């Protein structure tokens, strides 16, 4: 028994430390414990309240358990028969009433928050309206007020309320930006969902799909990028600019016939699949190949390398995705297209 005591004694401070350390850390662009906007903060507040109440319960139960286990062990050879207690009404009432009080303390702010977070900003002219459509395995963001559509990267003006209308083009997915707001499912058909959030600080926040949607579900990431208002306006304007085809006519031809049948750049091409306008200035390719000139992990590389890798074999990056391998693209064409796309930038941040 002593062993168990020591075990617990040693473990308790460790756990306490871990809780503290974890609460303080976790990537600020990803962790729910490190909220970066009012919605996530409200949710974090509720989480803290619940954790607090629940810690009290746990400590009480652990304390009684330990006491009982140690105090009432049977000594070897002990043949005495303990008193057969039937119960104790007072005690039983106490442990019925105390939990009820605790639940009221938790329940009231819960209900308040449920209604608070269900506010509908979809008619609010002050809010930025975004229609989020999920696809296997990418995200489409449409801004109806500006007549633009983009993919994988949701650009928002900082501080403004973003009003999300979420739906799915195929199976169920769920739209989740842990450090800014909880998730909302995207349903196919008529069950369209609404939510809102805002990001007071500039920065890039990681978003995830949270509903099993097929083999590449775990790779269905996106980014939310909060920028100042004038940058946002420049971004909107830049996205509507026409875009020139690759200067090399052979590459242009390949790009037009093999890519623009599905994708769009500027005013060219089709809208069925992710819009590629400005892809050179995005944080990632495909949501998960991180663009950086100083790659450390196998999912990182320069914009060009990532684009090349993706176009060469999308299935190797995201198994089961709808783009699939584009047959009969020559290595030269892949390189040309990757180079062209990597230079397709929108210079809106100043």
């Amino acid at each position, binding site marked *: 028994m002593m062993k168990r005591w020591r075990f617990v004694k040693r473990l308790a401070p460790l756990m306490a430390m*871990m809780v503290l350390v*974890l609460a303080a850390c976790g990537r600020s662009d990803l962790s*729910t414990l490190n909220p970066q906007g009012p919605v996530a903060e409200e949710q*974090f507040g509720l989480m803290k309240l619940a954790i607090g*109440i629940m810690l009290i*319960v*746990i400590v009480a139960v*652990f304390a009684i*358990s330990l006491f009982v286990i140690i105090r*009432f062990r*049977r000594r070897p050879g002990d043949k005495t*028969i*303990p*008193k*057969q*207690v*039937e*119960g*104790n009404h007072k*005690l*039983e009432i106490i442990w*019925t009433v105390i939990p009820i009080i605790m*639940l009221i303390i*938790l*329940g009231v702010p*819960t*209900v308040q*928050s*449920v209604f608070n*977070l*269900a506010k509908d900003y979809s008619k609010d002219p002050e809010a930025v309206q975004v229609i989020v459509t999920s696809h296997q395995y990418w995200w489409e963001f449409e801004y109806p007020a500006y007549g633009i559509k983009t993919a994988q990267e949701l650009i928002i003006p900082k501080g403004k309320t973003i009003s999300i209308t979420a739906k799915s083009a*195929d199976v169920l997915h*769920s739209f989740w930006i*842990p450090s800014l707001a*909880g*998730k*909302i*499912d995207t*349903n*196919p*058909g*008529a*069950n369209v*969902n609404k939510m809102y959030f805002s990001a007071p600080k500039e920065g890039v926040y*990681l978003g*995830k799909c*949270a*509903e*099993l949607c*097929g*083999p590449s*579900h*775990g790779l269905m990431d996106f980014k939310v990028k909060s920028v100042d208002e004038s940058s946002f306006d420049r971004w909107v304007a830049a996205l509507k600019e026409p875009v020139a085809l690759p200067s090399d006519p052979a590459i242009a031809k390949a790009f037009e016939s093999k890519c623009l049948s599905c994708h769009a750049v500027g005013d060219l091409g089709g809208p069925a699949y992710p819009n590629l306008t400005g892809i050179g200035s995005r944080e990632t390719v495909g949501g*998960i190949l991180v663009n950086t000139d100083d790659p*450390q*992990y*196998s*999912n990182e590389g320069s914009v060009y390398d990532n684009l090349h890798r993706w176009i060469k074999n999308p299935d190797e990056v995201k*198994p*089961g995705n709808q783009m699939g391998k584009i047959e009969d693209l020559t290595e030269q064409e892949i390189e040309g297209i990757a180079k062209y796309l990597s230079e397709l930038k929108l210079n809106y941040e100043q």
Partner: protein
Amino acid sequence: MDWLTTVDHKKIGILYMIAGGFFFLVGGLEAILIRVQLWKPLNNFVSADTYNELLTMHGTTMIFLAAMPLLFALMNAVIPLQIGARDVAFPFVNSLGFWTFLFGGILLNVSWFTGGAPDAGWTSYAPLAGTTYNGDHGVDYYVLGLQIAGIGTLIGGINFLVTIINMRAPGMTFMRMPMFTWAAFITSALILFAFPALAVGLAALMFDRLFDANFFDPSGGGNAVLWEHIFWIFGHPEVYILILPAFGVISEVISTFSRKRLFGYSSMVFATILIGFLGFMVWAHHMFTVGLGPVANALFSIATMLIAVPTGIKIFNWLFTMWGGSIKFTTANLFAVGFIPTFVMGGVTGVMLAAAPADFQYHDSYFVVAHFHYVIVGGLVLGIFSGLHYWWPKMFGRMLNETLGKLTFWTFFIGFHLTFFIQHFLGLLGMPRRIWTYLDGLGFNEMNMISTVGAFLMGFGTIFFLLNVVITAFKPQNAPADPWEDGRTLEWTIPSPPPEYNFAQTPLVRGYDAYWKEKTDGHKGMTPAEPIGPIHMPSPSILPFFMGFGLFIAGLGFMYAKDWGNLFGSFKSGYALGIVGLLILFGCMFLRSVIDDHGFHIEEEEILRDMGGKA
């Protein structure tokens, strides 16, 4: 052969245990493979497709083919003994329940060998589970395998209801019933109401898949959210179906090894009923993010939180059963005592999840994975281990080795907390669940590695248990009737293992904890309620085996009807096979109806001989 035809509840209990144990190993192996894939970022140990199959089969197998049958094993082995009955109410149906479960489970697992297991998660949400996005036969196996296995569970549950209502020994009023029997009773009632919902859902999904109906496919006018409602109207009570019997086990074990009667018995009964009832009222807490609106979310939040109250009553009653007792730490009791704080941790995270706005963050993250494993592994599996160690001598007449048992407990227990405690934090830091791999540099690496190490420890724990079982099987069958010496309920009044007819004479129950009462009154055994006489027993039958087999064949046939060629003219050979399967089923039912079988009698001399030899 004896085992294929038996209708004896004790043998069926053992069959359930072997089959459930086997599927537990299969599901455990799948879990280990999942954890190996996740031990480091961007791992490629299994492919994304295989991962989703492993994930789906792990969840489905553990819930339907491991946990439920192991509980049914304990219920079959113990309930009739605890209420002083000679068998369950419908022995034939009991055997049928086992065989349909087994054939359903086998059908589900055949999918591994025919080109792809189901991969839409154990919840099989539409439209991912529909033919548009799941064109191969994986989900067909899920639909038909679970449907067939579900029949077994449903008739098993009905059987226990009738048994407990009708076959209690004289004097055993409802308020004198042991807690495990009570738990089994409420569980069976939940099965009666929940499983038909599953059956309806699966039937609708089957129509969608096999006959191009459109219940759940939005592109054809169906509704995907409908499936979620149907699934969880079944699925949430299912969680309580699993945990209530474990509560029952814990009540028995704790009280026996504390040498004390259960504290607050009547409030325990009341809490059990209340949990069962509330279990049906809260299904939508799995759907806070679906978009049901604030009113529904608020109501289901509060209703869910309420379950904490009766659960709390149970926890404190257990603690106060031990309080002032004389606690002996056998392996069975270690599992029971370990259960209490562990389950409390699962319970409190449940209350956290019930707060809908916070659940917008937790939902479908690793926090949820941690939560439900605390409940189903930390609650249910610890409960099952406790029950197995406790009743093993009664079932087999042999005592399990205590040293190995303790080794099992400590490795499993430590491994469990190592695996799942850390997952709470993974979820809070932003890791979604059901992901095949995660990117490097997100801060998930170390914790996932620790979790994988823990999973291996749990695996070792399970191996120690198996070792124990094997070693014990070679020992002589010499366990006494009351091996723990502090037995309180009726099952400890008869020899271990019990004779085929359980009780030579039906006992007369004179109070709660019947056997304990006789002991404290200075009696050696129960007072009989009838004279010794010939005992009427049901005949064994092979029909249930073939009925299960017929369903299995029918399932396979209909599933492949679209692919297989024609037999004569345009008649599909798959349909032909399906019809053959159904004919086997109905043929057996016909035989069962027309054959006039009166069973047989065990004669007085034989019973007296048994009593002389054993008692």
